[in-house]
Each structure stands twice: as C-alpha cells, then as structure tokens.
C-alpha cells in the first residue's frame, strides 16, 4: 500500500503552502475511488493527482498553467513539480574497476524547472548529482536506475520546499533538501550533490 501510494505520489508532487486543508465542496475530488477500500481522496491531500486525467470532471484551471485562472483552492499557494528521468542523463565519469565494496562513478547535470502558480513565475535550479556505479548496499546502479532514484529524491525534496523564496535562495536551499531526501530514502548510497 505504501509502495503504491509512493509510486503514484511521486508522479506529481504537490506542494501545499498555506492551503493545508481542503474543503471538498470547494476543491476537486478524485473520483477514482482512492486506494482499495478507501474513500475518494481530496486532491489537496496530495495524493491521487496526476497529470494524465484522473479527474471525473475537468478541473477549473490547469494546475500547471501559469496563465489560466487559478483554482480557488490553489490560488497563491500551490506549486507542482514533476520531473522526468530524462532530465537526469547520467554519464559514466569513472569506470568500475571491480575492487572493494563499491566502484565507478556517474554524474548527471540537470536544470530543473519550478513554477509558482499564484504569479505564474518560472525559475530553474541547476543541480549535479553523482553516485557510484556499484555500491555495498545497492549493488550495480545503472544510469537508468540512477535517473529514477534522482527523480524520486528531487521530487521528495521539492515537496518540502518553501515556494515563496526568491529563486536564487530557493536553489541554494534545494541542494541540502535533496541531500536530506537521499539520506532518508536511499541511505548510504554514496551520492554527492551540488
């Protein structure tokens, strides 16, 4: 269940700052029935929201639209991010020599987009993630696995960010947030982030 929740939630991270409670009368309801025997889940709860049309009826405004009319629940308060593995093109910078409990190294440079729905402002944070090709705990880490891990971790970090910060400060704060997410989600992976 937790795994299912996690995989769905990671498709689209919803950041709620200031709109922490959702009135079902005002906001969208996920009519997909929730998980297993659960009741329908308010979109504002941060689950069930996808960008692929899970809604029974169209929302009042596209969540990712910077120009459209804001949904009343989201106005000035909600920001979405959704990263893709293709944004983390890992390349091998050091081949694995096969010795020890870990070896080799791979690096991806990403330029991640963030949007503030209230103002429509868009900004980017450059981030570089490196991790070994082989690790004591995780075994071999292919480039595609490294990219998937990076998506998980950066989306988790983005969910905990404050979106009212100036872009430069936001980007500085984002790097330690990613480090912390690595530490909690993939401890002892041996990654570096800058």
């Amino acid at each position, binding site marked *: 269940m937790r795994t299912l929740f996690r995989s769905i939630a990671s498709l689209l991270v919803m950041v709620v700052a200031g709109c922490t409670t959702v009135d079902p009368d005002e906001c969208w309801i996920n009519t997909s029935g929730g998980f297993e025997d659960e009741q329908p889940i308010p979109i504002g709860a941060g689950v069930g929201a996808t960008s692929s049309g899970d809604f029974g009826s169209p929302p009042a405004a596209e969540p990712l639209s910077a120009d459209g009319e804001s949904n009343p629940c989201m106005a000035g308060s909600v920001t979405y991010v959704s990263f893709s593995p293709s944004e983390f093109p890992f390349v091998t910078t050091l081949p694995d020599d096969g010795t020890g409990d870990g070896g*080799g190294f791979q690096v991806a440079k990403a330029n991640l987009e963030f949007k503030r729905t209230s103002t429509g402002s868009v900004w980017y944070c*450059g981030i570089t993630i490196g991790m070994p090709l082989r690790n004591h705990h995780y075994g071999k880490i292919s480039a595609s696995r490294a990219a998937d891990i990076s998506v998980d971790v950066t989306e988790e970090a983005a969910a905990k960010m404050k979106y009212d910060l100036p*872009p*430069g400060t936001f*980007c*500085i704060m984002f790097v330690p947030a990613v480090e912390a997410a690595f530490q909690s989600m993939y401890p002892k992976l041996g990654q*570096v982030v800058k």
Partner: protein
Amino acid sequence: MTNLTRSELLDLVYRFYPRALLPFERRHVPPGEPFYDDTEEHQRLVEASNRGRAEYPTWKAMIRRLGDRYSLENLSLHLLSGWTDSAYSAGIWFTEETALSFHVSLLGPYYGIHLPRLSEEEPVAREVAREIEATYPGYQRIPPELGDEIVPDVATSGCLMGDMTIYICLFSKYWTWVEP
C-alpha cells in the same frame, strides 16, 4: 604532536571557505556582486582537490590494505571525476546496517574517524587510526569536542550557514554518512 585548538582549526577552515557569502548559482548573482566560486578561498579548495587527485595513489594503496581486512567502501571516487571536495573518505561495514567512516583532509594534516554508537568497534577504529598515521605521518585526529563545533558564517553547496561544522568543512559532507 601539538594540542589542537578551535581557533587554529577555524583559521584553517576560513582559508578555504569564504565568509558571509552564499553559494548562489552564477545566474542568480547580480553583475558586480562577488560570486562564491570565484573567491580566493574557493579557488584554494579547488587547488587542494587537484592535489588530492594527484596524490590519490597513496590513499588508494592505504584503503586497499584496509580493504584486505574489512568490508570497505571508497567514498572518494567523485574526486577522480573532477569534483571539488575537502577530504578523502571511506567507510568500513560491520554489518548490513552499521559502518564507520574515516576521512583524511586535503586542507591540512588532520584526519577523522566517525564511529557509530557501538563501542565494540573501537578496536577497528584504532587500527584505522594506526594505518592513517603510518601513511600520513604527522596527521592528527580531530576529536569530537572540536570537530562538532559549528563554523560561523560559512556555507557551501549542500550545507547552509549554521549547519557547517569543523568536521564537515575539513572532511566533506561524507562526514554525515555515519549517523549521528
């Protein structure tokens, strides 16, 4: 061996980390404002990393010796990929969940060993210390009462002002690989 003091370690840290300057990306720095990566201090850190790459075979030989006895993971491979960092680092696994880490600074003649809370691992730590001191003569171990001190006014990518300790500054962010 001399007695280490907080002030000499802070003086060393401030040679490699600019004070009161945040590591903004260049695109977020207004024209004419100082850019973190261009500071003398950061350039010294880059040079120290370059020296670390050049002298890497000494580190590699040492961790190979330790790796013959323990389950060892080298945490310095990013240095060989051109990253800037302040130390060589490695971890030794005791179980699937517990490990210690050890670090040899590239900024000065210091090393550190980060033990988990298990006292039975002390003999391994002593052996690592002997190996480091034999490989790097004159290097001193920084004790926790100094290493855990917060360094005022410095930040680096991934570690904000107020979170930077002497250990993190001299031994890289990998110091936090072992918790607490």
